Structure formats: structure tokens, C-alpha cells
């Protein structure tokens, strides 16, 4: 299955992935209109310190602790992609407690949010991958 992989060697810390992620979430046509005067809450987030930076988003684990721990069944695996059903999430944050990558965060609508590889927002390549100017985020099949 194709997953998003990051390589900190090439991450520039430009944070564009976060903006492209946030924009993809709006389903808007123009980033300038969609994100103007908005504090973004992306599903991929940059960690940075002392010149090192990298993006972190859901790894779509084979053994997803978040899905196994989800008390409502809102998190589920579909075709390898871990998705969240916002209607069923009660914001207990068990998944936030469980995720060893820190890749799940509260969303603006009360549920939690996580990277769903843009399966719900766009076709093909996730927005963060498309938006990364340096190939630090790739979408590919690995062993």
C-alpha cells in the first residue's frame, strides 16, 4: 500500500505541507481565499528544532493502536487507510493517548482528526506530498 513517508534530510521546515493539508481539508479552490486570516489546524505537522525539521502525519500502522483502542469504532481501517468517522467520535482522545507518533490531534469540529491520505479530499497524491517543494514527503509503496 502506498503511504506517506518523510525524509528529514530533505525537509526544509517551510511548513507548506501544513498549509496544503489544511487547504485540502477545506475543499476550496483557492488557497488564498480558503486560508486567509485562518489559523490552520493541519493533520500533518512539522516538528523542528536546531535546523532539523520533519513532518509527522499518520503512519497508517499495520497494528494501529488508535483503531484498536477506539472506544466507539469511529476509527477503522479501510483498504489499509485508517479513517475517522467524525459522526461517531466522542472526543475521548484515547487515540491521542495511544498514537506513538503523536499524529492524531483534536479537530475544529469536536472530533479528532488525522491524515487520511486525502482519500476524502482529492484524487491520487496527498496534498502534503504534492505541496512539498523538496521531495521530503513522498507517497509510495515500501516493503
Amino acid at each position: 500500500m502506498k503511504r506517506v513517508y518523510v525524509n528529514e534530510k530533505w525537509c526544509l521546515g517551510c511548513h507548506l505541507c501544513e498549509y496544503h493539508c489544511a487547504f485540502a481539508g477545506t475543499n476550496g479552490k483557492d488557497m488564498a481565499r480558503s486560508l486567509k486570516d485562518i489559523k490552520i489546524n493541519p493533520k500533518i505537522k512539522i516538528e523542528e528544532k536546531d535546523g532539523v525539521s520533519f513532518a509527522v502525519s499518520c503512519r497508517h500502522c499495520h497494528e494501529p493502536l488508535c483503531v484498536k483502542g477506539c472506544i466507539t469504532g469511529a476509527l477503522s481501517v479501510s483498504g489499509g487507510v485508517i479513517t475517522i468517522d467524525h459522526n461517531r467520535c466522542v472526543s475521548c482522545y484515547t487515540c491521542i493517548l495511544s498514537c506513538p507518533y503523536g499524529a492524531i490531534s483534536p479537530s475544529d469540529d469536536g472530533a479528532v482528526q488525522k491524515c487520511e491520505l486525502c482519500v476524502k479530499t482529492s484524487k491520487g497524491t496527498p496534498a502534503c506530498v504534492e505541496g512539498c517543494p523538496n521531495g521530503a514527503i513522498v507517497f509510495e509503496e515500501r516493503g
Partner: protein
Amino acid sequence: MAVNFLYPDYEVARNYDRCISCRACERQCANEVHEYLEDSNKMVCDDAKCVNCHRCVSLCPTRALKIVKSNNTYKENQNWTGKTINELYRQANSGGVLLSSMGNPENYPVYFDKILINASQVTNPSIDPLREPMETKVFLGAKPQDIERNEKGQIVNNLPPQISLSMPIMFSAMSYGSISYNAHESLARAAEKLGILYNTGEGGLHEDFYRYGKNTIVQVASGRFGVHPEYLNSGVAVEIKIGQGAKPGIGGHLPGAKIVGDISRTRMIPERSDAISPAPHHDIYSIEDLRQLVFSLKEATDYKKPVIVKIAAVHNVAAIASGIARSGADIIAIDGFRGGTGAAPTRIRDHVGIPIELALAGVDKRLRDEGIRGNVSLVIGGSIRSSADIVKAVALGADCVYIATSALLALGCHLCRSCHGGKCNWGIATQVPELVKRLNPDIGYKRLVNLLTAWQHEIMEMMGGMGINSIESLRGNRLMLRGVGLNEKELEILGIKHAGEGL
């Protein structure tokens, strides 16, 4: 001091309707042009620091930025232009030589743009490269006078070492130091993938890149940096650099600030010491000295590597080339006055040397007149911008072209001509780690491969149009060229007819 003040040449135009204050511009500008004001959630910029490299423009996710030419002006004067005045002010202030980078930007004729290419109609067929074989393979190297046969009468291979190229294009010399590790890696990997060569330049060869030896030309220049036997034998050819198109007649200077870590080790000079390449090779004061160096290098490489001698295109280039052809050199490389550089005195870059088209035509003719054109290969460079330039260069008589500026553009260079500042925002002409990492060789090498694959395809299309299916039939085939808007003398030097003249 007011008299010091120079109004910025370029201004950053920010469309605040589109700016979402993502701060990508701020994070990506090594010149610290952009700044985020926390209080007002607003980006501001200082135009004076902008070098117009377009990094911010390219990365802005909302297209909120553009760079515009300042319309601040002095009183109009065709003689004392704003540029001239500003340069004078800068020198009055600093007392120093003006420095520039990349190729000559001034308004001299570009002969390639005044030459047109032929195509077949009716009397012979054009060839479709998608249906028929179309050969762009090139061999470079000296050729013996005669064939030899063994006792059975079979031809024996008496050719000196040859370089094999999939197309008549090579990446010309750019040293590790003047450009980044990642730029070098991109070039080396692209050369390998494409079946062509790249050139170490005068900075030695980083240990990581010995594995690309089959696609490497190692350069020996006047500073002899990084030259040792293993180095000389690591590539497929050795190039003696006598001169460079951007700065004929002068040497090079890589400031000590850039001589750090791997670069110091690769160049075999102490960290932080300036790397100064003398203007001449101090063991070459004459053509016979060159012959000695050529053969020294051949001895050092067991006569297994062709030796290239690279010179800048200067007024007497044809006679110099003739001398080189007789010096034992296998390949002559000529660099025209528009060739790029990581740093050169502005006056030298902009006023010394001659256009490569004229130099090429003159050298090719001279070598043919002397009957020795077949003995050596001829590589030319100095602002080859497209496949059309290559077709024209080959038709004028080149075996192959060197490209560098085009390659850097493919890697992201936006020709801001600020390489000498060392803060290349595209990760090319810099050694600052956080800037170097901006050039991901995985992307870089693919873009180079794309570019040359596209060019090769275009070359094939143009060759096919002329009814030629092998590049050697284009070489020196000047009847395939016509000049437009050139005077008799220019046509004569180029050895071509004017458009409208028949065969």
C-alpha cells in the same frame, strides 16, 4: 551616509489579498528579506536585501508574491545609464573590484539567434525519429592518421582512448565548492543515467563520487587543487583548464569561508585558507609547455584517458586551437564569453572574450584548413540554451557541447547572479548546510535527465527534418544553416549563407 544610498533594483510586490501569512517566504529567504509581524499577523519585506532569486515567489503557495523592477530612476541618459551610475557609486564607496556571477548579461549579439536551420522538402525525405532509428551517439577523442591491419588482413583497433556519449552534450566544469555537494550529486547521477559526462571542475572529486567515474571528467587547473594520481585515474578523461569564458585571462578565488569540511579535504588544502587559482598555469608559459603537461597527464594515466584542453574564446582562438591540436591533446574545449561562473570581476566577465559561435566557426575552419580537424574533437560551451543551439553548434562544426548554466537552471537556478554571495537560496552555489539541503538530488538529477532527454528528442526531430539520421552527418554541415540579419563579414566568419540564398 546619503551619498552611499542606492535604491533597490527590484521590489518585492506582495498581494495582501492573497497572502495568508504562512511565512514560507520568510523561512526560505537566506537574505532575510521577509519578516512576520506577530502583532498584525502580517508579512513585511525589505527590498534592499532582495537578490531577485525568486525562491519566495516560487514557494508562495498562494501566488501572493512577485518581484518587479524598480521604477526609481535617475535622469534618463543613454550614456550614463542607471546601472553604470550605480556601479560607479558602489566602487566609490568600496574601493573594490565589482564582482558578478553567471554569464555575461550585456547586450551583445547572440549569433545562435541569428542562425536558422534547414529542413527537407520533396527532393529528399525528412525522417521521423519515432519510426526510424535516429542516432545521437558521439565519440570524442583523437583519431590516428591511418588504419592498421594484422597479418590476417583484419583491421586492428589503433584508436587512442575515446569517450562515448549518448548525445553530443556534457555538463561542463563546476567545482565542488563553487557548487554544492547536492548539485554535484545531481550532475553525476544525471550523467550516469544519460550516458554522458560531467566535469569535476577544479575542486577535486569528493570521495562519494568516485563511483560515477565512468561518467566523470576530472579537471586539472592552475591551482591543481585536489589533484592526485587516484583522482586523475578516476574519470574517463582529464581536462586541463587553461581558461574560462566568463573570465579569460584571470584565475579563480574561492574564499576561505567556503573551504570547510569536505571541501577542504577534497581540495587538499587547509580549512579556511583561500583557494587561489593563478591566472596562468605557472608551468605553462608557452605552447610547448602545454605539450609537456598533456603528456605528463597521459603518462600519469597510462595513455588510457583522452586529454581535453579547455580555453576561453579569445581573439586569436583559432591559432591557439591549432597549437593545442598539435600538442597531443585529444579534445579541445572552447568556452565562449557568455559562459557562467561562480564569481568573476564584472568588467572581465562583461568585456573580455568573444562569442562562442564565431570562435567555433573560426576554429573549425582553421583546423580543416590545416587538415587536422579530424585529429581532434571539438567541444564548445558558453551559453548553450536549447537543443536548437546545439544543432547549430554541431552544424557549425562542434562534436559536442558543454552545458552548465542550462543545467543549473534545471536544478532550480533563477539566474539571480548572486553566486558570489554564497547564500544561494536554491541550494546550488552555496555551502551552507540548510541551504544545500534545498536541492534534493533525487529531484535534481531527474530534472537534468528530463531536460536532456527532451533536448535529445528535439535534436532528433530537427535532424530528422533535415533528413539526417546520425549526428556525425550534421557535424560541420554548415549548408544546413542560414544567417538572418548578419553582415557579409559575419556570414563569412560563420561560413554560412544568408537566409534566402539557395544551396
